[in-house]
């Protein structure tokens, strides 16, 4: 008889920091294999359709960036929140409100604003996301209410707000009664990179909104790693007692991290409605706000990790779409992969802080 036991390590194992995510990815692929087998598909053909076909040409790369960009953007904001141990799981809703604010500008003020429309839309979406997140901040910081539940409930409310608008006042009168707004004018859309004389991207959809993500990547890195404010977040998150003792203002930090992550999620909403979608409808997002939680966790709340994780998650989305088209499998397959990946990653993290000891049974006792 043998028994496995955990023994705490004196310090986190550096090698395991790298190996743990790799093991988690391997386990996810293995589970996916079983899932495809269960669904009666040849797993190897399915894997090729899932992971290779979507990015086999330039159009695929463009689609990958188009999906990775909002994921990365939202997850960057979430790293700031989660470092302070504030569990904002309502980024999806903050993104919705950002999308709503941007749409409001696009359908009502494009003529007045002309070339300024897109800029104003981005600012409005940031404001919208920040306002939505500040409700959670108010509840958490001022009223001591659980931020997980509040931010999530607000996501449902935001979703219903979109439905209310696109089925009601914002419905396109010429849209055959579909729940969609009018299509945005060119001034209210991000320009595809192909139109900027970049022949490399000809025929693809990737657009200038990607520069917003590229702008925030170094910004968040500096905030998290170099600024004292970022350090304070970490202290509040890891050792709230110590933070209180040295006099860090916890309430202020809660407000900052929530409002910032809401603001950035709001902008992601604008990059979607003014990007590939070009209007507001009732099913415009494949759950970027929730997936970004996985991106932030998978990326270990580090900017470099988040960038890589967002590309991986974008690939999972594309894979889901690809097997839907080529093999008629439901798109939710990508959600299953996401769930497995996050679960295994959390499980494998045990290897970083603990050592597994094998105990053998000799007599009545287990010994090393």
């Amino acid at each position, binding site marked *: 008889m043998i028994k496995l036991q*955990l023994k705490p390590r004196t310090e986190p194992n550096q090698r395991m920091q790298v190996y743990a995510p790799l093991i988690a990815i391997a386990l996810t692929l293995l589970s996916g294999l079983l899932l495809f087998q269960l669904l009666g598909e040849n797993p190897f053909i399915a894997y090729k359709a899932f992971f290779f076909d979507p990015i086999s040409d330039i159009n695929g790369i463009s689609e990958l960036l188009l999906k990775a960009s909002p994921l990365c953007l939202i997850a960057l904001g979430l790293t700031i929140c989660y470092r302070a141990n504030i569990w904002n799981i309502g980024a999806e809703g903050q993104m919705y409100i950002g999308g709503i604010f941007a749409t409001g500008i696009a359908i009502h003020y494009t003529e007045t604003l002309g070339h300024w429309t897109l800029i104003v839309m981005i600012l409005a979406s940031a404001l919208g996301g920040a306002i939505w997140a500040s409700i959670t901040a108010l509840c958490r910081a001022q009223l001591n209410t*659980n931020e997980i*539940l509040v931010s*999530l*409930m607000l996501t449902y409310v935001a979703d219903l707000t979109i439905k*209310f608008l696109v089925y009601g006042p914002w419905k396109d009168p010429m849209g055959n009664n579909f729940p969609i707004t009018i299509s945005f004018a060119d001034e209210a859309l991000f320009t595809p990179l192909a139109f900027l004389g970049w022949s490399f991207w000809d025929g693809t959809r990737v657009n200038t909104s990607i520069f917003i993500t590229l702008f925030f990547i170094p910004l968040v890195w500096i905030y998290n790693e170099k600024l004292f404010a970022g350090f304070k977040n970490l202290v509040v998150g890891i050792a709230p007692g110590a933070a209180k003792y040295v006099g860090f203002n916890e309430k202020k930090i809660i407000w900052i991290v929530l409002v910032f992550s809401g603001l950035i999620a709001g902008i992601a909403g604008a990059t979607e409605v003014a990007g590939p979608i070009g209007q507001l409808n009732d099913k415009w997002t494949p759950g970027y706000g929730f997936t970004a*939680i996985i991106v932030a966790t998978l990326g270990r709340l580090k900017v470099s990790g988040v960038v890589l994780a967002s590309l991986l998650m974008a690939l999972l989305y594309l894979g889901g779409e690809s097997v839907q088209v080529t093999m008629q499998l439901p798109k939710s397959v990508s959600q299953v992969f996401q769930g497995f990946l*996050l679960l295994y990653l959390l499980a494998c993290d045990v290897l970083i802080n603990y050592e597994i000891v094998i105990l053998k049974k000799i007599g009545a006792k287990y010994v090393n």
Partner: protein
Amino acid sequence: MLIESLTPLLVSAIGAAIPLLFAALGELIAEKAGVLNLGLEGTMLMGALSSFLAVAEGSSLFLALLIGVAVSVLFTLLFAFVTISLQANQVATGLSLTILGVGLSAVIGKTYVGFSAAKSFAPAPIPILKDIPLLGPSLFSLDYVAYFCLFSVIAIAWFLTKSKAGLALRSVGESPSVARSLGLPVTKIRYLAVLFGGGFAGLAGVYYALAQFKVWQDGLTSGNGWIALALVVFGTWRPFKVALGALLFGSVTVLGLYFQLVDIKVSAFVLASFPYVTTILVLVYLSMDKETIRRHAPAWLGKPFFDDR
């Protein structure tokens, strides 16, 4: 006249409250042992789907219920193992369980979307009691699963406050290290509590699939797993208050019906947002009373405990 118009409202309010109550009672037990399981929504969907598939394949209602519960318990075992044995963050692991459950149930249930349940739980009115005005049709004309739910409120309240095992459970949630030094099997108690919670979440799912909606849809539970989580806080970790909360939320859900009765015109989307908005308002209201929360919330809630034996 008043009673006549109130009766259908109370009937649907109690119907909507039953699955919420199941899920919340299960979560209450897990939380009393110090484990916060945010995977309710995913677990409920797995329970709902497996029982739905079971009746579609011709199993009896009772067997389908057992299958739904068993699948949910096994599904929750993933969460229990990762958080209790492997010390992972409970919030993130619970989220992963929800994502996985929502995804798996959508993938597996794909071909059944829009199908009606082959069988469903029928009301079993209790003789004599069923003739009481208002309460008769609403409280004493339920199905067996719902009666079991009401019975478990009493049973769990008794278990927590009057039984020795309940005391052990609560002590683990308050201070696992003290419980450990008293010789209690902390890890085992945590596992059992979490799996019990998973089983009850499964019952909630079964109730949605085979008693309330009787039809399969993607995301059948529409966020009610999260409302159940809020109900535990709402009831400040006390079964009877949780039951009261479930009834209140059930009523909010059927408010639309009431508005139709009295001819108030409100957008369906505004109505649909009531349960969520109510949850937030109630949570905020309760959080102001820090003393009650402090007295009833398990002190060790959400924190891992490393059992070195």
